[in-house]
């Protein structure tokens, strides 16, 4: 569950962003849309605790992450928030499975190999497990980053333009996967996007202006 209240943020002397309040329950999906420059990525970074808002609160389960110290935030983020980023980046020296294990280890101290294998299976990536991520197609990479977001069994998954680099066919697959996985693993899913194709698929939407 994730809930925001009165968040405002500004880069140095620029005009501040004021974000609408919203709430997203476990197993639900919330779509945040908006044109470029409306602060979509900034909002996502705020939700992920990568940046701190000037005022306002961000509640994830029982914790207000705006009150956490940097080191607490690092740990909290690792354990409770899964991030899917616009461009899939990975640790290039590790293969697909090791990338997942590394993420799990950093968050929880355990590799959680069974879950990693299960996720790869669900995402039809089992036979790519020992390949380097640079050897995968963009669609496959995007699926690996979904697996990586879920490996820590987070309360909230935040996705930044998860489909912007995909064709219609893969957009369909990825959005279905995201939705079904959110339900399966009982996570709240927040997608930040300007992709019109997604707007048709999700009911809960907020538009930034």
């Amino acid at each position, binding site marked *: 569950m994730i809930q925001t209240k009165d968040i405002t943020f500004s880069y140095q002397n620029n005009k501040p962003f004021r974000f609408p309040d919203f709430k997203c329950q476990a197993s639900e999906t919330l779509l945040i849309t908006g044109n470029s420059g409306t602060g979509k990525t900034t909002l996502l970074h705020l939700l992920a605790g990568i940046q701190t808002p000037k005022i306002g609160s961000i509640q994830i389960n029982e914790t207000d992450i705006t009150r956490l110290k940097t080191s607490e935030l690092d740990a909290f983020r690792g354990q409770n928030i899964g991030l899917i980023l616009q461009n899939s980046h990975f640790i290039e020296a590790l293969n697909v499975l090791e990338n997942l*294990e590394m993420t799990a280890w950093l968050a929880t101290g355990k590799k959680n190999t069974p879950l990693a294998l299960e996720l790869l299976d669900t995402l039809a990536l089992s036979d790519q497990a020992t390949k380097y991520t640079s050897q995968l197609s963009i669609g496959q990479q995007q699926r690996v980053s979904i697996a990586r977001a879920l490996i820590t069994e987070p309360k909230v998954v935040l996705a930044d333009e998860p489909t912007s680099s995909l064709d219609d066919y893969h957009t369909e697959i990825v959005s279905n996967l995201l939705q079904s996985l959110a339900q399966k693993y009982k996570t709240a899913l927040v997608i930040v996007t300007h992709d019109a194709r997604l707007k048709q698929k999700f009911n809960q939407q907020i538009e930034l202006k």
Partner: protein
Amino acid sequence: MIRKLAWKNLWFKPLNTVLSVVLLAASVTIITLLILLQNQFDKKFNSTIDGIDMVLGAQGSPLQVILSSVYHIDAPTGNINYDEAKKWMNNPFVAQAIPLSFGDNYLGYKILGTTPDYITKYNGVLTQGTLFTEQLQVVVGANIAQNMQLKLGDTFVGSHGSSEHGDLHDNHPYTIVGILEKNGSVLDNLILSNIETIWEVHDHEHVHEDENQAEVHIHEDHEHDHEHEDTMVHDHEHEKQITAVLLSFKNKMALFSWPRLIAENTKMQAVLPAIEINRIINMFGIGIESLKYLAYGIMLLSGISIFIALYNRLKERKYEFALLRITGAKPLQLFNLVLIESILLCLIGYIFGTVFGRIALYFISQTSEDDFKIAFNPFEIVWQNELILFVITLFVGFISALIPAIKAYKLNISKTLANA
């Protein structure tokens, strides 16, 4: 996991890694080699002069006297009169005096006339046989026995002087009565007899020559000639020659007074081995020092190479690091990651370096044993110096990684992700 990641990162860009490791290994190899060489060289030189306070020898280069009579790696400066030397050897200041007389060689190995004290002085132990008691009996060093496959009772003929191809003394075959155990001292490469043996071999040669001459002379001159021969033999009897005397003193005052006394009153010179060896070690020391600077220069280069490699990789991996951070890595873990990568590099370089250094020493030792009869032990570990080298190597790794590691520590995740 961080260590595993560091390890995998190293081999993800193998060329960068190999370059840094090769540079480091090269410098560590050279330094290790120098450490071992210097240490064993010093030890060898110093242990050989243990208990020798002074050497009496013929006038000439003092260093040559030491090199020839103590280390057996140069020709002697000449001979000294035994009777004259004896006056000094029997002085109450003297604790022990060992006379040395070089005569011949057997296939390049020196035959040294001396007293059994010489063997005791270098802690020689017989594996077989007994010490020499009679003329023409010899005790051979372990290396010679092994290389020439000599055994007790074997006989051989020496050739004159120190050259392998000198005239053969066919009339005086030596008999092996004892074989020494290998102990790493000069004994290993010497053939030892008593002093009288050397005199015997050489005097008789002269006598033979004289006799031959005598036969050519016409009868009337025979009486005169005989007289001449007699005086020759007479001279030899009374003017015994030896090459040098190794002295140790009860009263160290002699160390200061004798060199001048001997120089002023005799045809001999008194040389203090400690001073000469210091000179020679200092001479080598300059070479070793400059090689060391060269090696540390290479190490500096490898440090810079590691720094550049890490720094460039950091730029490439900025996003990767941001990613690690958002998946729960602490800044300190990223700092450690960079540091561990660098230190792993240095460890690998150090391990290769110490191994290669020893392999190099092994080959040097083989050559030097053939050429100078000096062997080095590649398996010796000079703990203190090698530990210092190890710490320096790790320090290089630490310093070269420091700036990249701090950059990784301070990485601004939000900016990095937004600019990706």
